[in-house]
């Protein structure tokens, strides 16, 4: 694929000096992931810096969800390295990575559907011990999503799709994450709800939480994010600042329907 | 009764027994001493056999009657009971590895092998009624005498109503494609249940009974027969229940029995299948009526099971009948001391014949057979009949006419081959143990009398 002033990710990485880890919240170095014999990700490198919103776009099956699952430790890469907050997390289980400060609102929301909304949020704070902090964050989630306050004692499984998405994001927030991984927060939502959710995402980011975002709606994603990565069949095809990606004719043709 | 399969625990030394049995004993066949006049000139080989479970789970049961029967053969040879003829002995084991104990298929194979040996004139066995079902048709076709020391299922010889019960399902007639060549020296469950019913209705004077069984052929048969005879004796069965051996609580049935005003609970089955647990549950329900069972209940486990509940002396006053302890009969004293001296070198428990209730039955069964063979020789001019089948037929005919006084007392057979030596002793739990009350006998027409 041609570059139009955008740089291929690998080149960027090779250019970065070892000491430049400081601001990198997430760094993937040449990750290979296999499902059985199927090569889901090959040589994926990616980085997310402190305070950014980074969008991960691409068509279905390109490996976006797999990338997030690899970051949060649900999948182990066959080769390559995942570094979080400057350190390698090789051999760490997902529960340990969660405790490092990675909040993940996974694909399909994966709520504890037979627990109440409040219990779901509490589970998000499972690894925390600071009661006052938890209370503050709960209040913050309820402020972000006033609907959840009304539904606090309702079973999560009985909520509507939009409300469930709010719980999923809220649950991830409850761990007071330094970085938030969001997998398709707009999937299946009415347009008005999509706007509301993205409003909240920007608000979360403005309070200092780094965000890595997967989104079908590439335009919306890139408009929200400062930078973007384009995945194609398991590899990073393009990366760069959002404005440049939006301007790229290839991206416009393939993802923005222009 | 049908012996429940034992566990795999104790380590037996049955290999040694097998060697001993295989060597057998045979007389030189030339001597003519000890009053065998007329048959001293007997020529030829006559074989007798045992077919009993000797290995696996049955190794604590079968070897006793086998050793006793072998002792009878050894003694017969020592006394030249068959005159100049050679008396051979074969021991067969009807256990299989597959069944870890007695196996009807193995029994049938053993009988087929013995039947083709023209010198075999009779077999002592089998131990279990289920094996008898497979063996009786084979011996009947071969005209070969089969004498069981321990089969108590009435349906092996007599058609009674219970034989068609789904848990039993024995077509007695089909067991005998040829002549009736099956005998037994032990009383049957039919006779036991007549005595049990008599005890309940006439001795204890209890008019209403709740009848339980353990769904197995022995227990179900005993219960059905008990109910029938109890009704005939003027009693009333107020309820029945048939529960699998895995049942661990009988509170539902005990409550029903209480509510129906039963004066007696009868349990047909074994202790392993809950006889003692019924008594325990009667205790917790405060039901203070007697429990009566058959020989399946008369053991120490009954007492510990019954006393395991809140009332630790709940077993007291329970009744069970059982064949009289053969080791306590005056007539058996000589046998048991001979057994002890003959097998003193064997490992425990096989060196003590009193450790198993059927030891003396194996001994008498073999002696009854040997007496019958001898009487055929005597009546045939001191020689075995030339034709093997004729010989076997004559042995069976001689068995029918048996009048033998042995370790068990006086043995004779009714037309079905069942022994007329039918004592059953009523036991009552007193001070933590079954104590004999009285011994009862039943005659061919069903009259029960106290035996002296």
């Amino acid at each position, binding site marked *: 694929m041609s570059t139009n002033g955008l740089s291929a990710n690998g080149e960027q990485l090779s250019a970065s000096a070892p000491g430049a880890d400081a601001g990198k919240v997430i760094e993937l170095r040449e990750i290979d992931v296999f499902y059985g014999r199927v090569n889901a990700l090959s040589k994926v490198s990616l980085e997310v810096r402190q305070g950014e919103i980074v969008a991960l776009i691409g068509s279905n099956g390109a490996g976006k969800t797999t990338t997030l699952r690899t970051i949060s430790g649900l999948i182990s890469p066959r080769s390559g390295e995942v570094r979080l907050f400057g350190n390698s997390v090789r051999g760490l*289980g997902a*529960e340990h990575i969660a405790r490092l400060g990675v909040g993940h609102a996974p694909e399909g929301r*994966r709520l504890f*559907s*037979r627990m109440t909304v409040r219990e779901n949020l509490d589970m998000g704070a499972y690894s925390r011990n600071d009661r006052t902090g938890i209370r503050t964050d709960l209040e913050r989630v309820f402020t972000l999503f006033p609907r959840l306050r009304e539904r606090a004692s309702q079973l999560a499984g*009985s909520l509507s799709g939009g409300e469930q998405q709010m719980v999923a994001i809220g649950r991830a927030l409850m761990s007071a994450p330094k970085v938030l991984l969001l997998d398709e927060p707009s999937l*299946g939502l009415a347009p008005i709800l999509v706007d509301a959710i993205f409003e909240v995402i920007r608000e979360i980011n403005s309070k200092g939480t780094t965000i890595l975002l997967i989104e079908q709606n590439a335009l919306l994603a890139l408009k929200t994010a400062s930078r973007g990565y384009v995945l194609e069949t398991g590899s990073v095809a393009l990366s760069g600042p959002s404005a440049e990606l939006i301007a790229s004719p290839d991206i416009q043709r393939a993802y923005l329907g222009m | 009764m049908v012996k429940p399969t034992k566990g795999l625990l104790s380590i037996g030394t049955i290999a040694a027994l097998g060697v001993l049995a295989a060597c057998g004993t045979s007389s030189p066949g030339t001597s003519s001493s000890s009053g065998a006049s007329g048959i001293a000139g007997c020529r030829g080989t006559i074989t007798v056999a045992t077919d009993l479970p000797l290995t696996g789970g049955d190794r604590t049961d079968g070897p006793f009657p086998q050793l006793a029967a072998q002792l009878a053969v050894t003694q017969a040879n020592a006394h030249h009971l068959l005159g100049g003829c050679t008396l051979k002995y074969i021991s067969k084991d009807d256990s299989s590895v597959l069944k870890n104990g007695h196996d009807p298929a193995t029994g049938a194979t053993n009988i087929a092998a013995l039947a083709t040996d023209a010198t075999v004139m009779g077999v002592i066995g089998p131990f279990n009624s289920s094996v008898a079902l497979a063996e009786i048709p084979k011996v009947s076709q071969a005209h070969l005498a089969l004498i069981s020391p321990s089969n108590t299922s009435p349906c092996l010889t007599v058609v009674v109503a219970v034989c068609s019960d789904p848990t039993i399902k024995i077509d007695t007639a089909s067991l005998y494609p040829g002549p009736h060549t099956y005998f037994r020296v032990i009383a049957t469950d039919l006779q036991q249940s007549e005595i049990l019913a008599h005890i309940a209705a006439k001795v204890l004077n209890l008019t209403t009974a709740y009848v339980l069984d353990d769904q197995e052929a022995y227990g179900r048969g005993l219960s059905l027969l008990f109910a029938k005879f109890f009704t005939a004796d003027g009693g009333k069965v107020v309820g*029945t229940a048939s529960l699998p051996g895995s049942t661990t609580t009988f509170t539902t049935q005990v409550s029903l029995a209480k*509510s129906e005003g039963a004066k007696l609970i009868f349990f047909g089955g074994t202790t392993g299948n809950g006889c003692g647990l019924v008594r325990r549950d009667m205790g917790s329900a405060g039901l203070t009526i007697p429990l009566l069972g058959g020989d399946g209940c008369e053991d120490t486990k009954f007492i510990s099971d019954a006393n395991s509940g809140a009332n630790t002396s709940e077993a007291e006053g329970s009744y069970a009948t059982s064949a009289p302890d053969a080791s306590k009969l005056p007539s058996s004293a000589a046998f048991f001391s001979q057994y002890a001296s003959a097998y003193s070198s064997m490992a425990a428990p096989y060196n003590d014949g009193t450790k198993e209730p059927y030891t003396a039955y194996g001994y008498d069964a073999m002696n009854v057979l040997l007496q019958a063979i001898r009487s055929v020789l005597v009546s045939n001019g001191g020689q075995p009949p030339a034709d093997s089948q004729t010989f076997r037929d004559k042995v069976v005919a001689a068995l029918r006419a048996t009048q033998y006084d042995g370790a068990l007392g006086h043995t004779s057979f009714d037309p079905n081959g069942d022994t007329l030596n039918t004592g059953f002793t009523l036991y009552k739990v007193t001070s933590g143990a079954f104590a004999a009350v009285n011994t009862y006998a039943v005659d061919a027409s069903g009259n029960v009398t106290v035996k002296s």
Partner: protein
Amino acid sequence: MSEQSGTPAAPPASFGGADRSGSAMLVDQSGLGSRQARKGGVVSTVGPIFRAANGWVSRYFASLLVIMIVLAIALTGVQHGASLMGEQIKNALVLGAIYALVAIGYTMVYGIIELINFAHGDVFTASGFYAVFIASVLHLDSLATGSFGGLLLALAIVFPLSMLAAGITGVVIEFVAYRRLRDAPRLAPLITAIGVSFLIEGILLVFEGPDNVTTHQASWINGQAFAIGGVSIGYTDLFVVGMALLLMFALGTFVRRTRLGKAMRSTAQDRTAALLCGININRTISATFFIGSALAAAAAIIYSINYGVLKWNIGFHLGIIAFTAAVLGGIGNIVGAGVGGFLIGMIYVFGGSIFGGEWSESLIFAVLVLILTFRPVGLFGVEVTTRA
């Protein structure tokens, strides 16, 4: 076992298991709530009339079952009088209490790793023998029968120690036999569970022998507490039912209120999401086995205090019936298992009382077949959103 996909909601104390909605859940744009077509059992090959009847039976299964049981109780009362009715209710409650405690162990393990832990019934037996051992080593029999205070002390010793030993047994079984098969095809751990069951039975057979073993604990509590209408209620009866209810209440509170309890519930409902919340799955599963086995130990002590005997293989049979209770209540659902245990106790006793004891177990398994046919999610696997 059964089709149990997409049951988004149930009473709050439910534990997981039946629900694996997650990504499979479809979301409607209207925001009215998620819906998924219910698989109600035998619908594909039968006619519309049967389908309608099936739906009706499925919906009112719990009510039908309760009505049948109430009718059976009433029938017993009419036929035999109130005193037998009362006695049988007492018998059913005592039996049901034990089934309920054992059923909870099945349901917890199934809820969290979708395994029918066939060894659970044998853990019950083994822990009964632990209690016997502890009682004999510490001479608790004489302590318990000496005075009321002694009895309380003996109970306060034997319950925690046996439950601890049983809990460790359960944890070891999971660690040795099931953990490495967690991602294997479903059949592999199932067969392993049967193998573990045989192993425990074999060990118990070697150490305890083939016959009933008297536990002596039945002598700990005896005597009549009171009588209602001619039905004598013993202290043992009160103890059995009271202890079972107390333990179930404690478990319910634990699962609902505590951190570990919530971790167990969330792991049961969605293991991936639990991981993402920072929950240590292995430790949570170990805790589940620990608690399930400890409850089996409590059930075994209660059993031996009521019945006074144990046998090497009683647990397997009792376990199968308790498992039926767990399915009846909705496998994975703790409250369901508790209620299921008592219902099975009722069916066992009143089935036996009315139709004869030989039918008790047949009836229980008939109910199992019916529930798998008409209501595979069990009585408490209620789908709130599809009720509309």
